[in-house]
């Protein structure tokens, strides 16, 4: 094992990932369970030549990010569910302005204030745009402290590559836990030069730069939409990421992200000891979603059923069901209210599914 490992919280590791990616601006507002992010940022971002602002609201934070990004900096904000709802306005504007930025959501339980326990109720919000209008945000779902750092690092890269907001969809467990992290794969980088489009004080002798989201005439707006749609199509082709575990010979495929995907790993190990041939497919990008690979599993004769485990009332399961397209039964095993899964919570319904792949108890049926 590497000697370079440091032991830290997921929320702090995310900040370190950001520093290594050259993040120079952070604005945020306190909300549990992501408070370590602004705390860590406020302490360390100055050493990296950046700026930290504790904003008056999440609404202001995301708009500060818009300004910082428009001015050419790699910029990041983080929040937890209710705060991310407030940020949706700004994310919509940033997406339409085609500005890069990174937004991290350490998801807690909603709706409303809910509670501060880990949850996955913001999946739809993250993968369907989230704010008003028609847009998408690249969304990465880490399941370890290592990935908190790595995915924030990657999110900056993808955001700049596509000039689009990139989301890191974490959850309270991943944000709050401490684990060893290895930063050797995350060298410090200089952010790309954006002076060909950013707002700056060096306008002499060049065309002025305009960043706007308003096109009052439909015939002006249509080409902009077309450009965005084409971009999203290219992202869908280029950026799908996923990982699997023991899925080569699996008869029942579990699809999970975030902390439930870790529990699923424990469940698969325990299940295999009692003869259940289980495997895991874990999307890393939930937008773009790995429809193709799930479809392949669904089309395989070996796979008898697909089980989606989520800490919500059923969100990602709809994407999975879309990918499976009725070729195999899709089951949904949820956890509500901020409770966390135990491996047994997953194994018990899976045993029933093995007995009856159409077991109505867990079968996901869309009416």
């Amino acid at each position, binding site marked *: 094992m590497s000697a370079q490992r440091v032991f830290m919280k997921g929320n702090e590791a995310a900040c370190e990932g950001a520093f290594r990616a050259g993040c*120079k*601006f952070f*604005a945020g507002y306190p909300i549990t369970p992501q408070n370590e992010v602004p705390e860590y940022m406020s302490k360390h971002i100055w050493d990296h030549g950046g*700026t930290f*602002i504790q*904003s*008056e*609201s999440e*609404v*202001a*934070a995301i*708009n*500060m*990010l*818009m*300004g*910082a*990004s*428009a*001015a*050419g*900096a790699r*910029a990041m904000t983080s929040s937890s569910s209710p705060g991310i709802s407030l940020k949706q*306005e*700004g994310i919509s*504007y940033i997406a339409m*302005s085609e500005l890069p930025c990174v937004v991290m959501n350490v998801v807690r339980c909603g709706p409303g204030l809910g509670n501060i326990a880990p949850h996955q109720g913001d999946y739809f919000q993250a993968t369907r745009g989230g704010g008003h209008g028609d847009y998408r945000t690249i969304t990465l779902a880490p399941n370890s402290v290592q990935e908190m750092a790595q995915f924030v690092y990657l999110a900056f890269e993808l955001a700049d590559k596509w000039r689009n907001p990139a989301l890191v969809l974490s959850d309270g467990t991943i944000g709050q836990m401490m684990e060893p992290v290895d930063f050797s794969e995350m060298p410090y980088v200089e952010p790309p030069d954006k002076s060909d489009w950013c*707002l*700056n*004080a*060096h*306008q*002499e002798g060049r065309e*002025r*730069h*305009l*960043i*706007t*989201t*308003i096109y009052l005439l439909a015939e002006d707006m249509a080409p902009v939409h077309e450009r965005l749609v084409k971009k999203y199509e290219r992202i869908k082709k280029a950026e799908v990421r996923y990982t699997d575990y023991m899925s080569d010979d699996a008869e029942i495929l579990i699809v999970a992200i975030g902390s439930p995907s870790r529990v699923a790993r424990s469940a698969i190990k325990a299940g295999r000891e009692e003869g259940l041939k289980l495997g895991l497919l874990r999307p890393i990008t939930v937008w773009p979603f790995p429809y193709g690979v799930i479809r392949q599993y669904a089309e395989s004769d070996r796979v008898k059923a697909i089980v989606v485990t989520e800490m919500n009332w059923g969100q990602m399961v709809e994407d999975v069901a879309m990918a499976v397209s009725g070729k195999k039964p899709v089951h949904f095993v949820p956890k509500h209210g901020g409770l966390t899964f135990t491996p047994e919570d997953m194994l018990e319904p899976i045993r029933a599914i093995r007995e009856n792949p159409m077991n109505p108890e867990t079968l996901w049926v869309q009416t």
Partner: protein
Amino acid sequence: MEAVPEKKRVTVDGQDYELVFGRPASLTSKPFTYCPGCNHGTIHRLVAEVIDELGIQHRCVGMASVGCSVFSYEFFDFDFISCAHGRALAVATGVKRVQPDTVVLSYQGDGDLAAIGTAETIHAANRGERITTIFVNNAIYGMTGGQMAPTTIIGQRTTTTPEGRDEHRIGWPIRMSEMLALLPGVAFVARTTCHDAKSILKTKVAIKKAFRAQLEDRGFSMVEILSNCNVNWRMTPQDAVNWVGEEMTKVFPPGTYKDVFAEDQEKARADAPSKTKAQSSEKTEV
């Protein structure tokens, strides 16, 4: 609608004439699209003139807010970004912190700055962000068709106060300049009007001071400019500017509410007697 290009000098009947009033360089050639008589145009011109005189056109970055001035970037000839309703000062904060060399201009109306963006306004001011804000207060929502604004005065009829603004139902017009003047982060805040030539010239002086506050790194600056919306007020342009001068100024008294430059001078004056004493004693010694 390109006008004939400006000539700096013309000769008429053998007599040379110089252009003494033309279009500022910081404005694009596009004619304003505001309603006839609307002071947005006047204020745009004043801001552009000040930017020209300070020689900062190519350092300026503008925030276009939501309201009638949403397309202000069509008219100002420097980098611009259009912001969500009320969020201009948050966006401006981001720009200024990342590019401190820029001169950041935020151009906002009353709905934007004093209703939906109140929090952003107060906190940008309180952080003392080096931003210059032009706050155009015309006591009404112009672009959406004449609804009540936070600055609508008592008794004023709008499409959402058809009987006139009733303070018992909806509260009083909000005085932003007076409020912001209380914040230590604010370097300069003044309220001016645009209802006649004299007040327009005063407005220009205030705008210049506001930019100076930013250029000299003193803090947040804002000029609240009482403007008209003759169309939604259902008045002629002349009646509307008269109403600004006669009625609006009663509720929104023009004046300078915070001025670090004046405070500097006052301090210098207060220190002066002791200095002159010291100097004179030195002299006697010599």
